[in-house]
């Protein structure tokens, strides 16, 4: 080992080996020495505001957190003057923070001020606490700020500016009494705050706190404000000296452990797969606490994961099975519902054959439940007619990756995206659809020089942040991708060694690129030729390139081909098999990856083994003691078509509001009406359930155990935070009851047994077990029998016979455009705060308060042309149907393009407009290809976006907390200097 790889540092006379560039405080912490530290948090890095980690370095007093180790450094942490300086810093903190721990909702054993003071053994306060001239800010929906308790450590600012990168919070150091402010000093509710809640997560005390905790966490904290104040005064009188105070409050904190349950779970919203502890008291959810060990998100969350759980306790939850009789739903007991379902399915199977039934599994359900759904379909019924909602979004990406690299998932982890030198996002509104993942990109771009190129129709947040932003004509991404690839080849900028060693079909691919000249691409996409050339050169030049894409690519008639073109480009430039590189089809739902992985697909068994493979089928037939059809079954789209054609008369849908989220909903709901038997399993009486013959009340993620697989192919366990609402059951139990009633010998006591069965049958998951997934442990498939997983794919080669990837030649033809009659293009997608169709998030009071209405985004140009203004009401008419909505005029869209959020419901639902066009390779609906004409119903009115919506805020970007401004204040003396001065 080379000498310079390690740096020797002496701490209190003992020598320690440090990593080069290591933070000194980090080293001290790992050396076992104890130095107080309040503003320092490993997930945030040094902020240097609290001064409590003062140590003597080479004879001089300095903040340990502000230094990087250097060879030969001599550090003293125990000298009397060092201790005095540390005490001075701690005293200053207590001037800003009143200790009334026993009646404080934050007294849960993890208050960092409390613990630091107790560890330091601080017995008495030298200077009294001083109230500040500010009121508490209670205006926000989810958290509140108490300036009186705030120690101005700046963690909240750091996390807002540089981790979440929403850039709302700053500390105003110029005031007589500094404080944290929102935007340019407006109340929380009126600011650009997106309520990701990370400020309240990292706050070391009760200054920034989740509202759910208030008056709930402690035994004595639920008091009227006046009484609470008296009790605070009383506590201070009785608890003179901190020793006894801590003893009493520690005992109370220990008692709280008995009453507050903290359960690890995995978020049930998007595909990022955030994990965190949920704090509950009976059925009451106090808060969500992410953990530095959370593998996908660390301490990060978005508003939905942090605060979006009200739906679990919604009064609209179903608690009894429903059976339709004479056009009324009748509540029935479970026994009756199960035997009814079993009897009807058996009848239909016997009369019309197995393939007359269809099953649609859910991305909200666990891997185990997806496995059971396809087992029910294949073993008990005997059909491959089983699919899931990835058909609506991600099948094209999976297809594109199967064609080229062989695994249908992200090629690395979110960490790899953060490490890339250049990130391209194509057709992805990342900051709203995958907020926590977007924050990683925003941080790398803001602090570490990562470049970001965004290709999207809409100028969303990532577009405004991008180093380059292009708006290619809808559906034309394949063309510029291919032209850029051709240019790289023509200039000889491709990674020749990589191609030589790892990729087949080069000549055919090269030939297929012939038509994609820069001129052609520029003409078709509308991006200037010179810009495309620069993009090509930057991609070729960058060492590590990651490409993220989403529905803007996949939900087109050439979604699979465009996904393929992305993968081709990555192969051409050698951007696979290395850290910081790769293909990232950002999965939309929490378990959209896992639902397909575990076999709810018409052509695949779990682990993507084809039904047509005799060896594989024999394996399942033997394990399940049944006969399974060889030919692939019908996908979602084909099932709906089959209903219309009279070839499918029974359908069983779990947790999918197909009647809102499928394209061309008029056509879909018409199909529902034709079914003989329609079974829907959901939390609520959804739009889809309204057409059902039987509705079975299911339990949400917080009420069950199981595993989810996120966009990184990461399998994570969720534990049961709450008992199922009386009357509701987890999907796996319902499926088992039906299978048993129909004669299946199923006998699972716990989801771990289902996983064990799946792992024993599917080689992709051979080593997956609940023991290996304990707590915050996770596995990224493929998982080998010995438990090793593959965070970065293709290390041992690509999963084809010769271990090589393949270029896949493509053709292009533009099939969609607006016309004279339908002259406007409608785009659609998610909003940050509403998930998907919104059936969970509209039930969250705070979210509904800030974002109550759907809207139609219209460009300023179009608004002028049509003479409409904010709040206008318009009717949009496509070939398939019509929808009405209220207008917001914004430059997020341009020209003749409109945007409708997917959470638009009722008459605004975008899927009244979509039609039966699909991706030619996967049958994914071409949601993004809708031409409409617009009729004006009202020229202006009340804006659909209320004044307290974050979109109206004004962020204040800066790096970190500007601690230099604190140091420059006249009343500031560094505690080390103070001690030297005082002698």
């Amino acid at each position, binding site marked *: 080992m080379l000498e310079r790889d390690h740096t020797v540092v002496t701490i209190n006379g003992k020598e320690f080996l440090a990593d080069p560039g290591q933070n000194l405080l980090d080293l001290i912490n790992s050396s076992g020495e104890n130095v107080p530290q309040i503003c320092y948090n490993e997930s945030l890095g040094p902020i240097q505001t609290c001064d409590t980690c003062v140590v003597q370095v080479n004879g001089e007093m300095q903040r340990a957190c502000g230094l990087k180790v250097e060879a030969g450094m001599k550090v003293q942490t125990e000298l009397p003057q060092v201790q005095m300086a540390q005490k001075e810093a701690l005293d200053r903190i207590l001037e800003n923070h009143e200790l009334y721990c026993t009646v404080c909702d934050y007294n849960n054993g993890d208050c960092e001020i409390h613990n630091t003071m107790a560890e330091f053994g601080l017995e008495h306060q030298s200077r009294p606490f001083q109230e500040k001239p500010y009121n508490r800010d209670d205006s926000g929906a989810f958290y509140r700020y108490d300036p009186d308790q705030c120690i101005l450590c700046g963690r909240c600012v750091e996390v807002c500016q540089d981790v979440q990168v929403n850039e709302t919070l700053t500390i105003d150091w110029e005031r007589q009494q500094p404080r944290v402010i929102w935007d340019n000093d407006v109340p929380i509710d009126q600011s650009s705050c997106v309520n990701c809640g990370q400020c309240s997560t990292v706050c070391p005390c009760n200054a920034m706190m989740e509202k759910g905790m208030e008056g709930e966490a402690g035994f004595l904290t639920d008091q009227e404000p006046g009484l609470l104040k008296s009790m605070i005064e009383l506590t201070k*009188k*009785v608890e003179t000296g901190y020793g006894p105070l801590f003893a009493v409050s520690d005992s109370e904190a220990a008692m709280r452990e008995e009453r507050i349950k903290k359960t690890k779970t995995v978020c049930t919203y998007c595909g990022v797969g955030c994990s965190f502890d949920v704090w509950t008291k009976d059925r009451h959810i106090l808060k969500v606490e992410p953990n530095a060990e959370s593998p996908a998100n660390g301490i990060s969350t978005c508003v939905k994961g942090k605060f979006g759980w009200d739906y679990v306790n919604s009064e609209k939850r179903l608690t009894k099975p429903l059976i339709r009789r004479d056009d*009324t739903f009748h509540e029935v007991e479970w026994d009756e519902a199960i035997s009814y379902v079993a009897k009807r399915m058996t009848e239909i199977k016997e009369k019309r054959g197995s393939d007359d039934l269809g099953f649609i599994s859910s991305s909200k359900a666990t891997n185990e439940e997806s496995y059971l759904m396809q087992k029910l379909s294949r073993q008990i019924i005997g059909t491959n007619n089983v699919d899931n909602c990835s058909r609506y979004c991600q099948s094209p990406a999976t297809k594109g990756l199967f064609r080229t690299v062989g695994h249908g998932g992200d090629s690395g982890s979110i960490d790899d995206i953060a490490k890339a030198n250049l990130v391209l996002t194509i057709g992805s509104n990342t900051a709203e659809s995958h907020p926590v993942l977007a924050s990683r990109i925003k941080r790398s771009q803001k602090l570490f020089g990562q470049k970001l190129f965004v290709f999207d129709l809409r100028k969303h947040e990532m577009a405004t942040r991008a180093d380059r932003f292009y708006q290619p004509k809808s559906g034309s991404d394949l063309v510029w991708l291919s032209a850029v690839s051709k240019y790289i080849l023509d200039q000889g900028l491709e990674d020749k060694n990589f191609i030589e060693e790892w990729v087949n079909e080069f000549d055919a691919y090269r030939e297929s690129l012939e038509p994609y000249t820069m001129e052609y691409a520029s003409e078709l996409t509308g991006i200037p030729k010179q810009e495309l050339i620069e993009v090509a050169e930057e991609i070729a030049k960058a060492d590590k390139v990651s490409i993220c894409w989403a529905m803007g690519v996949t939900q087109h008639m050439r979604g699979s081909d465009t996904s393929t073109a992305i993968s081709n480009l990555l192969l051409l430039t050698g951007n696979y098999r290395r850290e910081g590189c790769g293909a990232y089809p950002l999965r939309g739902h929490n378990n959209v990856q896992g639902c397909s992985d575990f076999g709810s697909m018409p052509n695949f068994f779990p682990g993507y083994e084809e039904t047509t493979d005799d060896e594989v089928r024999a394996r399942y037939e033997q394990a399940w003691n049944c006969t399974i059809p060889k030919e692939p079954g019908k996908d979602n789209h084909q099932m709906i078509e089959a209903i219309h054609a009279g070839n499918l008369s029974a359908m069983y849908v779990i947790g999918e509001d197909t009647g809102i989220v499928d394209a061309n909903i008029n056509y879909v709901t018409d199909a529902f009406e034709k079914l003989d038997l329609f079974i829907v399993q959901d939390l609520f009486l959804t739009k889809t359930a309204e057409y059902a013959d039987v509705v079975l009340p299911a339990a949400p993620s917080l009420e069950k155990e199981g595993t989810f697989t996120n966009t990184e192919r990461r399998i994570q366990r969720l534990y049961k935070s709450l008992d199922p609402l009386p009357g509701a059951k987890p999907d796996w139990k319902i499926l088992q009851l039906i299978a048993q009633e129909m004669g299946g010998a199923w006998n699972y006591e716990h989801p771990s047994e289902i996983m064990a069965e799946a792992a024993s049958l599917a080689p992709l998951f051979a080593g997956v077990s609940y023991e290996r997934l304990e707590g915050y442990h996770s596995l990224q498939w493929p998982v080998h029998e010995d438990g090793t997983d593959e965070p970065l794919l293709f290390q041992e080669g690509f999963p084809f016979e010769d271990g090589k990837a393949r270029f896949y030649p493509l053709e292009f033809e533009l099939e969609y455009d607006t016309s004279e009659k339908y002259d406007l293009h409608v785009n659609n997608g998610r909003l940050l705060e509403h998930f998907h169709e919104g059936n969970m998030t509209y039930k969250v009071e705070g979210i509904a308060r800030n974002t109550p209405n759907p809207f139609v985004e219209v460009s300023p140009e179009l608004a002028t042309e049509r003479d409409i203004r904010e709040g206008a009401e318009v009717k949009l008419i496509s070939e398939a149907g019509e929808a009405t909505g209220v207008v917001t005029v914004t430059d997020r869209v341009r020209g003749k393009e409109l945007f409708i959020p997917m959470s638009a419901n009722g008459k605004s639902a975008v899927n009244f407009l979509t039609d039966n066009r699909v991706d030619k390779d996967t049958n994914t609906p071409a949601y993004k290809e809708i031409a409409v004409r617009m009729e004006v119903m009202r020229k202006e009115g009340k804006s659909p976006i209320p004044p307290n919506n974050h979109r109206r805020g004004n962020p204040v970007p800066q790096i970190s907390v500007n601690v230099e401004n604190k140091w420059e204040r006249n009343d500031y003396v560094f505690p080390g200097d103070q001690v030297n001065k005082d002698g």
Partner: protein
Amino acid sequence: MAKSITNIKRLEISKEEQQERDLQEVREAVTENKEAILKGIELLSALDEVGTLDTAYAFSHSKKKALKYVVDEISKDQYAQLLENLPEIVFMLGDLDVKTVRETTNRLNEGIKEMNDTAVDQKTTIFDLAKALKDPEINRSITMMMQFLKGMGRQ
């Protein structure tokens, strides 16, 4: 033709049936926890005998109000000194040399015992006093008290 519907006919469970179900649940719980429940009954009756049950009942019933009275009352100025003293007394107890105090207390008790055995109407003259100083037990007491006075007066 299954049209979209939202009307739900609730499953009506008669009051009697609901009672029967609840009772069954309780019955099962009782059988499973027989010992604990019997002990609980004993405890309750003991608390009832001494009147604690009534007090506890009244306090739980108006916990918030009661707490408010207590906190408001002891927050008054006249209790300030008492409250500040409370922890001080605790600390004082901590500072005392309990072992020595115990020895001294023993002696004190011996003294009291002797005192009670003696008739109070008996008179003591100066001569008796001088003579008493020769008594080793009395002499030891006087010496100890003089040492105590000295220590107490020390600055």
